[in-house]
C-alpha cells in the first residue's frame, strides 16, 4: 500500500515539472519570504508607528515622526556619516591587505601550500567574536596596551580607544570575508592570460594592475559587500574599543526596548545604504561577473 502510494507520488513528480520545482523550493522560499522579507516588512511597518510616551507601549497609528526626528536631529546625520566612514575605511583596508595576500596564496606559492595558507587565513573565524574584540581592547588600552608598548619608544602615542581602534579591530575581524572571495577569484584566472601578458612584454606589476586586478574586480566587490555590510551593522566592537563613540547599531540597541518604532526607523538607514550600494554595484556590472 505505502510502496504503491510512494510510487504514485514519484510518478506524479516525474510527469509534472512544476510540482517538482515547487517541492524543491518550498522550504527555502518559505524561509526567504516569511522569515527574511517578512521581518524586513515588519521593520518597515514598525518604523511608521509610535509609542506611548509614558508606558512605552507601541501605538499602531501612522506617523512619520520617527523619520522627522532622524532627519531633523544633526546627531543622527553625524552618526550615519561616521558609520559610513568606518565601513568604507574598513572595506578599503581589508581590500589593501587581502588583494596582495590572495594573489600570493593563489598564484605564487606552490599548490600544496595553498590549503594550509587558506586555513590559516580563516582561523580567526574559529574564535568567538567577543574573545577577539576583548583581545583588541587589551591591545589598544591607552595605558598598558600592546600598542602603547610598541609605539612609546618612538615617541608616538597609542590611539587608545576611539575610531582608529574600531577601524583596526573591524578590519581584523572581517578580513577573512574579503580574502576568501578574492582568493577564489584569483585562483580561477587562467594561466594562459597571465602568460600572454608577459609574452606581450608586460612586467609583473603591469600584469597585476592591468590584467589580474580588472579580472578579479567582481571578487573584490563581493568581498566589499561582506566587509561593508558587516561594519555597517556592528555595534559591539565600537562599544568595546570605541571609547565614547557610537555607530548606527548602538542607536538601535539604545532605543529598542523603550522606543521600538524609532529603533526600526534607525535600522532602516543601513538597509537603505546597502540597497544603494548594491544598486551602484549592479550598475557597474560587477554582480553579473560574480
Amino acid at each position, binding site marked *: 500500500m505505502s510502496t504503491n502510494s510512494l510510487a504514485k507520488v514519484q510518478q506524479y513528480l516525474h510527469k509534472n515539472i512544476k510540482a517538482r520545482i515547487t517541492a524543491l523550493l518550498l522550504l527555502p522560499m518559505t524561509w526567504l519570504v516569511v522569515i527574511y522579507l517578512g521581518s524586513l516588512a515588519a521593520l518597515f511597518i514598525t518604523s511608521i508607528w509610535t509609542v506611548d510616551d509614558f508606558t512605552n507601549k507601541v501605538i499602531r497609528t501612522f506617523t512619520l515622526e520617527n523619520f522627522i526626528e532622524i532627519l531633523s536631529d544633526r546627531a543622527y546625520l553625524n552618526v550615519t556619516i561616521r558609520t559610513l566612514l568606518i565601513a568604507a575605511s574598513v572595506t578599503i583596508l581589508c581590500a589593501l591587505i587581502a588583494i596582495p595576500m590572495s594573489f600570493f596564496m593563489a598564484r605564487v606559492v606552490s599548490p600544496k601550500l595553498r590549503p594550509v595558507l587558506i586555513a590559516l587565513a580563516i582561523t580567526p573565524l574559529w574564535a568567538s567574536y567577543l574573545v577577539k574584540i576583548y583581545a583588541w581592547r587589551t591591545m589598544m588600552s591607552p595605558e598598558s596596551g600592546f600598542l602603547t608598548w610598541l609605539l612609546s619608544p618612538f615617541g608616538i602615542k597609542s590611539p587608545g580607544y576611539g575610531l582608529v581602534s574600531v577601524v583596526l579591530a573591524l578590519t581584523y575581524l572581517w578580513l577573512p570575508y574579503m580574502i576568501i572571495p578574492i582568493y577564489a577569484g584569483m585562483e580561477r584566472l587562467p594561466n594562459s592570460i597571465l602568460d600572454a601578458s608577459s609574452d606581450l612584454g608586460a612586467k609583473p606589476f603591469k600584469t597585476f594592475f592591468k590584467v589580474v586586478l580588472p579580472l578579479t574586480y567582481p571578487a573584490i566587490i563581493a568581498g566589499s559587500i561582506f566587509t561593508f555590510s558587516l561594519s555597517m551593522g556592528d555595534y559591539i566592537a565600537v562599544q568595546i574599543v570605541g571609547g565614547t563613540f557610537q555607530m548606527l547599531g548602538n542607536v538601535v540597541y539604545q532605543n529598542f*526596548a523603550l522606543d521600538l518604532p524609532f529603533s526600526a526607523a534607525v535600522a532602516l538607514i543601513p538597509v537603505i545604504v546597502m540597497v544603494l550600494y548594491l544598486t551602484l554595484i549592479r550598475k557597474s556590472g560587477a554582480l553579473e561577473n560574480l
Partner: protein
Amino acid sequence: MRFVATTQQIKGRNKTLNKKRLLTSLLAIASSTVLIAGCSSSGTSEEAAPAEESAVYQGPVGDTPGTINILAWPGYAEDGSTDPAVDWVTPFEKESGCEVNVKTYGTSDEAVQLMQSGGYDVISASGDASLRLIYGGDLQPVNLDLIPNYADIFDNLKDRPWNTVDGLNYGVPHGRGANVLQYTIGKVDPAPDSWSLVWEANSPVAGKITAYDSAIYIADAAVYLMSTKPELGITDPYALDQTQFDAAMELLKQQKPLVGEYWADYTKYIEAVQSGSIVAGTSWQVIANVLNGEKETVGAVKPKEGATGWSDTWMISKNVEAVDCAYKWLNWIIKPEVNAQAAEWFGEAPANSKACALTANKDHCKLYHAEETDYWSNVYYWKTPTETCLDGRTDVKCVPYSEWVKAWSSFRSA
C-alpha cells in the same frame, strides 16, 4: 566564596547588560520575532491611571496553594540554580506551599516591557520602573497590614514617591544603594569629595573619566547643578523643567570630551580601572569592593553634593491569581533573615532594619551604610520623570522620561 558571591552580585546589579551583549546574535533573530509580536499586541493605548483604593486586597492571607511567577533583578530571588548554597526560594515554597517561578531581567526598561506583556505576578522594581508600571495600570496597591515584616523596614524607605502614589502603597522595599564617586588611589590626589572632578572642564583626570551609559545619568548632572547652580532651583533631579533639563544636558556636553568611556558593563569597567584607562567616575559600592578584593586600589565616596541611587520595591501585578502566595512572598522576602541573605548576595543595603544583625559579614551594613539615616538624606533614588513634576510644582511642566531617552540617544550619537 566571598569573591564568587560578589561577582555574582554585580552580574545582577549590572542589569546583565553584558549577558545581553553575549546574546546579540540571538537578538538579531529575536528582534524580528519582537516585531512580529509587536503586530499582534493590542494597538490601543490604555488609559494611564493608577488604581483605585477599592483595588486594595482586604485579606485575610489564607493558605490557598498556588503558583506565582516572579520577575526579579538577578540575585534578588535565588532558588539555588546559581549557587546551591544561595537559595531562599525553596524554603519559601516549603513553608508556604506555593510554587514559585523566577524570571530575571536585565534593565528597568526590559522589566517594564515584560510586566506589560503579562504573565507575571510579582516584580522587584527599581524606582525608574515602578512609576511607569503603577501609572500604566499594571500593578495593584498592597495592603501593608497583611505584611507583618513591613514594620521593621527603615522608616526612610516607607511611603516614598516611587512606591506610594496618591496615598496608596504599591509594595515593600527590598534594598538600596548609592551611585558613588569612585577614584583610583594614587592617581587622584587628594581624595575627591566633590563631583566637580568628573564635571568640570579643568578636571585633572580629563580623558580618564567614566560615566553611566543610560538616560537616567542626566539626573547625576542635575544633582551636581543643585549645588553649583542653585539659581536653577532644582530640588529633585528627576523633576526638571525644560530650562533645568537643558542646563543638565549642557553640563553633559561639557563633560563628554573628558570622558574616556561610558560604562554599562561592569566587567569592562573593572578592566578599564585595572588597566588604568579610567581613574574616576560614577560607580557602585559593589564594583569598588571587587576592585579592592586583593588590595585597596580604589576609593568610593558619596561626594558632598549628594548622589543618585536606587531603591527597589517588591510589587504585585493587578492580574495576580494566587494573591495569598503573592502576599506571603512579599512578607518572606523582607523577613530579616532573607533580606540579609539577599542584600549580601547582591551587594546593597538591606531594607529591613533587623537584617543587619544577621548578615554573614558583620560589617555588611556598615559597608553599605544601611543604618545611617544621614547618608541617605542626599541620595536621590532613581525615579521615572513624568510630565507632572515629581517635586510638586504645578506652574510648569517637567520633561518626561521619554524625552530624557531621546535626548540621551541624540547626545551619545552626536
